[in-house]
């Protein structure tokens, strides 16, 4: 190998090293910011998931071929027991020549508990495809507000529970403010998630979670009590 070849290999190695170092520093900085936010909110920070959160049967946690969660902030703030964390999943795909590529999707998540035991409900933004499907007559759960139906796609194991959750007050809030995130409810847990945001922006996500929680109708606890016996 001539000197030019060796130099090229060294340059490549140097660039890879630089890339790894920058990635490490970005990760470190994010962790530090999470730690500072946890301190500010009076909560606990953990780099790893102390709760096996991704085992919860939410739709979001079932996507992709590989998934994980990190940078957990958890504890009780303003009377609400919460968890804030980074979540990602990876999708692998192969082309016709067998070349494997991966795509990573990153999210910011917030969890808390609801005073009820609900079957699974997902509230997602109505997309282009689902909107088109609606025009063709394929409807998900439809509510009395056409504006809400156009903006939100709701699917649930138990349609009745979806109607109990999405009352007029909740629908109005979702239309006015709640559109910054998407939501899932399963059992006692509410999941609120959005595309990955910076650690300081987690405070906004926490506020969105708090408001969603505050808008959960009290009738849900009566119809789907926490002891599990459906009333």
């Amino acid at each position, binding site marked *: 190998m001539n000197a030019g070849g060796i130099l090229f290999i060294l340059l490549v190695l140097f660039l890879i090293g630089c890339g790894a170092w920058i990635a490490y520093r970005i990760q470190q900085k994010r962790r530090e910011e999470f730690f500072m936010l946890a301190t500010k909110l009076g909560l606990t920070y953990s780099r790893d998931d102390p*709760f096996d959160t991704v085992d919860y049967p939410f739709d979001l946690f079932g996507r992709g071929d590989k998934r994980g969660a990190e940078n957990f902030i958890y504890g*009780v703030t*303003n*009377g*609400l*027991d*919460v*968890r804030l964390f980074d979540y990602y999943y990876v999708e692998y795909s192969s082309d016709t020549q067998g070349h494997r590529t991966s795509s990573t999707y990153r999210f910011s998540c917030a*969890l*808390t*508990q*609801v*005073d009820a035991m609900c079957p699974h409900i997902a509230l997602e933004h109505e997309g282009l495809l689902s909107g088109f499907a609606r025009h063709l*007559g394929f*409807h998900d*759960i*439809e*509510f*009395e507000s056409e504006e809400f139906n156009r903006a939100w796609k709701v699917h649930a194991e138990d*349609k*009745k529970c979806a*109607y*109990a959750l999405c*009352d007029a007050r909740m629908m109005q809030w979702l239309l006015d403010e709640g559109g910054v995130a998407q939501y899932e409810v399963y059992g*006692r*847990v509410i999941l609120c998630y959005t595309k990955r945001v910076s650690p300081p922006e987690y405070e906004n996500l926490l506020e969105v979670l*708090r408001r969603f*929680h*505050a808008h*959960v*109708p*009290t*009738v849900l606890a*009566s*119809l789907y009590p926490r002891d599990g016996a459906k009333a």
Partner: protein
Amino acid sequence: MTVLYIVLLAVGVILIAVALSYNRFVSQRNLIRNSWADVDSELRRRYDLIPNLVSTVKGYAAHEKEIFERVAEARSAAVAATGPVDQQATAEAPLVSALRGLLAVAERYPDLKASQNFLGLQHELSNTEDRLQAARRFYNGNVRDYNRRVQSFPSNILAGMFGFHAEKFFEVEEAARAAPAVDMTGQGGTP
């Protein structure tokens, strides 16, 4: 021969589509009936609460006979109404109005308002109203889905052929919104 196969295939596909659509109409109609049973059950729950509520108010305001009679008459009429949905909704209106009157009377008696028994009943009534509204919205949602199919092409052809008619929505006002809403912001436990 090929034409015959194509015709047979087309007829087969049409028959399968008709059968699927028919079955879906049947299951939607059953869902409406089941969800109406929920509404009915919540209405009965409300009827059952009324005698206790009246008797508690009577204990503090025995001379308000007119409102007690109004509530009793409206309750009897509502209990007796077992006809179509719109007739039942019509029968509920006087009861809602009478109940509001009863709660307005209660407002004038501080001792009654402070009574634990009355507060408990008022809370129970408010909870029943919430449950009734949730059941009503679920019923109306099912009716909306069903009616859309009854009125949309091509399922309207099948609906006409097999006698699936549009169902009526159930609209009933809330009788009581007196109990304070529970603030759930402070109820979070461990996820």
